[in-house]
């Protein structure tokens, strides 16, 4: 894409949008309302060099919505349960999953901390949250490599090992926990050298501020929330 957009959202924008989407994801609303929400993660992913993911996300969503609208009323029995499961997961959880993925993938920890401190959130909350940001991707990597290591010893994720779920849980849990403790020690040593425990307020290398594009996205998602609220309140008022 020759499109060069300065698409670097403020972490606050990402989190506000995440919260807004999570408000609306739980209720069944007409397509023209949920469409707004579905498009916001799409835009974010599309303009941050994740075009393939964005397109497949929107395709899966449309497919699931299609199933929900046209196929479900006529489906019965076991097929119906699978179709319901798929379309329910895709239409409700996918937007928020994608937004969460985008937030975690594109937010640098330093940006996150800077923006959180700018909005005066105490460090008792920002530090654990930034550890979460930093650590969730590596937990998934660890799970992957543990699976590989178990396969090498003939204990992969297959029907045979599923017969013995307690062993499976133990084999996964112990390495992850050992690693977690190690990471905790390393991170706290690293943070100590960087003076994170210094009580004086810190300066930041990265500058975070709300750009035009932040405002545009925020306005779009707040409009979505407004229409959504109007739809529900109107439904109550006119019922």
């Amino acid at each position: 894409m020759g499109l060069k957009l300065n698409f670097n959202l403020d972490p606050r924008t990402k989190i506000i949008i995440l919260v807004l989407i999570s408000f609306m994801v739980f209720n069944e609303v007409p397509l023209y309302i949920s469409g707004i929400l579905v498009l916001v993660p799409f835009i974010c992913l599309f303009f941050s060099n994740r075009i393939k993911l964005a397109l497949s996300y929107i395709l899966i969503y449309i497919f699931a919505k299609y199933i929900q609208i046209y196929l479900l009323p006529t489906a019965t029995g076991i097929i119906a349960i699978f179709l319901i499961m798929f379309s329910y997961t895709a239409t409700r959880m996918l937007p928020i999953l994608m937004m969460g993925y985008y937030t975690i993938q594109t937010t640098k920890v330093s940006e996150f901390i800077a923006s959180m401190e700018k909005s005066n959130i105490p460090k008792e909350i920002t530090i654990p949250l930034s550890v979460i940001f930093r650590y969730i991707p590596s937990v998934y990597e660890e799970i992957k490599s543990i699976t590989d290591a178990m396969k090498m010893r003939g204990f992969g994720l297959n029907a045979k090992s599923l017969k013995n779920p307690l062993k499976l849980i133990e084999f996964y849990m112990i390495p992850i926990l050992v690693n977690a403790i190690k990471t905790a020690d390393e991170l706290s040593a690293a943070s100590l050298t960087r003076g994170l425990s210094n009580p004086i307020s810190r300066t930041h290398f990265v500058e975070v501020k709300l750009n035009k594009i932040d405002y545009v996205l925020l306005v779009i998602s707040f409009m979505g929330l407004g229409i959504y609220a109007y739809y529900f309140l109107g439904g109550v008022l006119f019922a």
Partner: protein
Amino acid sequence: MSEMINVKDLITVGIFAVILTVLIFLFGMLGYIPILMIGLPIIAALIAGIPYMLFLTRVDKFGMVTLLGLILGIVMFLSGHTWIPIVVYTICGLIADIVLKMGNYTSIKNSIVSYGFFSLGVFGNMLPFYILRDYFVESIRASMGTDYVNVILPFLTNEMLIVLIIVTFIVGLIGAYIGKIVLKKHFKKAGIA
């Protein structure tokens, strides 16, 4: 409070919050099978005992468990549950913290009981089902079909909620005990517990 919570403690809280979140989400996937959705708190209580007991070996100040609950609640909030988990997780964490404080952070009995209370936090994810029951049943009926609702409906009564809470508490005690055994088996030997 003998000492303030320092950065090292905060990082430990963050790391364990990640592990508990991953566990809850992985087992939350089982919720698509109707019966297991009701059993979710019980399974979660059983599994999460091991990380929690390991977490307790790092805890010696008031507030860390409360903070863990608060952070878990925020993560649940950000991931599409309502705001209710924040309140429930924090309250459960606070009770667990008080129980630990009474045992001076060393008593094994108190840490097992405190896990019993902490594991009730998962009900934060479930309570919206009960509070908005009628509304919710309709929306599930629309999205998951009548069969699913018929299976799930007998479990959505208030009596059932109380039974579930009690069962989860007891299973939490068992989970914590298992955690203690695993701790002895694996982590004491490795010198990190």
